[in-house]
């Protein structure tokens, strides 16, 4: 079954930032002086922090340990005439379980609606990493896949066809070796193109649901789309509701999805959902 996705509201210009200022502020990210916000997601130990450091010129410690970044880091850079704020999310295997880290990463992508989500994957173990990538693509359609550690893949004789991957996933795919500063210019360019709307992603969505799930979605998704016309990921929200995800239930109740006036200033709440550690 293919559920038609909502296209952006007609008055939204293609190159305007898509992020949700109000929710971002609530998440502890101040967007003053920044044009776009970029989230960095990925499995643990894929070199996500190295990519972050390479993009921002910061020197956050990165180790060969699955699960290093526990507090989030944020930094920034300029590309062309635009200033990008970049947020390093905790490394997770999935966005569907209920650990603290996964919730932080998920909430940021879902409610903050970053202009671009860069999914960092380990080229040498693509299958496992695509699990998270596909989950991210369910939530957002503004993503870039960063095929990191491509040097290791090459060293071991693996060939990754990034064009085919890009076609299958529907988002730009950039091979990088962040430790050697390889491919970073291309990554910056891809981020820029997605952020400014020059490249419009048509992300892959998961198929093959069981008939019972299909029926349930057919009932729930139209209801969601009617209530929240601007929701870019009604199908995913429906799946989470069917899984009994209480965080999503709460978001439905308090209207976090319904706030269409995305660029109206919002006072930050006193209890922030996400504490960011600013390293810049």
């Amino acid at each position, binding site marked *: 079954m293919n559920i038609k996705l909502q296209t952006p509201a007609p008055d939204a210009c293609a190159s305007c930032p898509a992020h949700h200022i109000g929710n971002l502020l609530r998440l502890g990210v101040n967007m003053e002086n920044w044009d776009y916000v970029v989230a960095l997601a990925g499995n*643990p*130990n894929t070199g996500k922090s190295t990519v972050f450091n390479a993009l921002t010129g910061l*020197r*956050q*410690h990165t*180790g*060969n*340990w*699955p*699960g*290093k970044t*526990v507090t989030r880091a944020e930094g920034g850079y300029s590309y062309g005439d635009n200033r990008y704020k970049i947020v390093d999310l905790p490394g997770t295997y999935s966005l*569907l379980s209920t650990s603290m880290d996964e919730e932080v990463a998920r909430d940021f992508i879902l409610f903050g609606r970053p202009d671009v989500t860069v999914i960092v994957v380990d080229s*040498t173990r*693509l*299958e*496992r990493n*695509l*699990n998270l*990538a*596909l989950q991210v693509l369910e939530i957002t359609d503004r993503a870039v896949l960063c095929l990191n550690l491509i040097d*290791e893949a090459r060293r*071991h*004789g*693996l*060939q*990754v*066809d*990034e064009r085919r*991957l890009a076609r*299958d*996933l529907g988002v730009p795919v950039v091979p990088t070796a962040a*430790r050697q500063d390889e491919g970073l210019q291309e990554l910056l360019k891809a981020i820029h193109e997605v952020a400014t709307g020059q490249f419009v992603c048509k992300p*892959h969505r*998961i*198929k*093959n649901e069981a008939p*019972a*799930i299909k029926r*349930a979605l057919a*009932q*729930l998704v139209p*209801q969601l789309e*009617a*209530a*929240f016309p601007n929701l870019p990921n009604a199908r995913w929200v*429906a*799946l989470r*509701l*069917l*899984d*009994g995800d209480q965080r999503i*239930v709460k978001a*439905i*109740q308090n*209207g976090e*999805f*319904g706030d*269409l*006036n995305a660029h109206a200033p919002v006072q930050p709440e006193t209890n922030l959902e996400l504490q960011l550690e600013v390293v810049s």
Partner: protein
Amino acid sequence: MTVQTGATQAILETADSLRWQIGREFHEHLMEDIYTDATHIADRAVTRPDEKPRFDLDRTIDRLVTSRIFGFPLMILLFTIVFWLTISGANVPSSWLATLLLDTIHPLLKQGAAAIGMPWWLDGFLIDGMYLATAWVVSVMLPPMAIFFPLFTLLEDFGYLPRVAFNLDNAFKKSGAHGKQALSMMMGFGCNAAGVVATRVIDSPRERLIAIITNNFALCNGRWPTQILIASIFIGGLVPAYLGGLISALSVVAIALLGVLFTFLVSWSLSRTLLKGEVSTFSLELPPYRPPRIWQTIYTSVIDRTLIVLWRAITFAMPAGAVIWLTANVTIGGTSVVEYVINFLNPLGILVGLNGVILVAYIFAIPANEIVIPTILMLTVLVTGAGGGAGAGVMFELESQADTLALFYADGWTLLTAVNLMLFSLIHNPCSTTIYTIYKETGSKKWTAVASLLPVVMGFVVTFFVAQIWRLVAGIG
């Protein structure tokens, strides 16, 4: 536009009723769908040269470092090298720093203060109190950390540490803990605060709490000097001179091993009592080996670990120095405040085989264990009225071990005092930097309190029993 409450309510009701229809296996089905797609896409994109699941070099290294024969010896060898490099390598820069900060700059500052006519109390408060305590902490703490952390980080970058967790997991499992605790414990030998931060890699809530609470039993860098000094003057002195070095070294190692034993014991009992209901899951990924980037590692580990820990220690040591100086110099009726406190705590101290001075020193040393010995010396001189000190509230260390021993004997120390001091140094509350770190990491006042109070209570219990049994057996008072 606001969404009608009615509409949201209807959505949630639909979802709830649908959940009864789709069955309990929903989450499983969803994950299967995702992975089916992931496999399909990955298969189309990746061409493998052959059907090798892993790379040859990784496999060879793994065979070696996890082998039944070489696995453990290799591990012991590597960590011995790390500790040896740390201890022997830190001696030289430590004495440079001590010469510079304590013997050169301190007198210069005093002269400078005298030259501008600074009143004695301000000069004492700032220079003898705050400056000296900070300088002491820096000279003792900085060099070992600047060596230990980069070495450790290199092993980490290479990918060896997860293999250590893999090798040792069975031992930790038996005490209800996680193999990765081996690493946070090892890190704790450098600094408990860093060890507590290192528990982040343990992703199971129960095992992580266990690792945090027991990290204090890893004898940290700030406590090694106390152990070494007391062991060499009291225990090393029991045997002929040529054996002295060996015996005192062995007794320090025995204390450190006792700490490991306590780690296991406390882990075991915590996992069966206080932490019984906490969630426990095990997962340990063994990442591929990567050639470490030496310069970058040294840079980031010095910036990230060493300097941050040092900075926190300094922020706590400075006020501590000020308090020590004040309590030693503010007098009520001719007796300084600190002497009142010492006299008050003395009966308790004697009961557990220590004395009031040691207990007071441990209160002062909550910010940084490095200042225990200088504080004990200063207070002992103050109490006994013996010569040789640097003045009330001024920390110092004696050049010769014989002088130190004589000073301690003058205050009524016995071998029991020395043994119990070594035990108490191992088993007492974590330093304030560590307590603060525990609070930041757990976000819980309850667990911070448990981690802080449990060891100090245990310390009193252990020293109490050792003292009573010692006195019974030795038949002395």
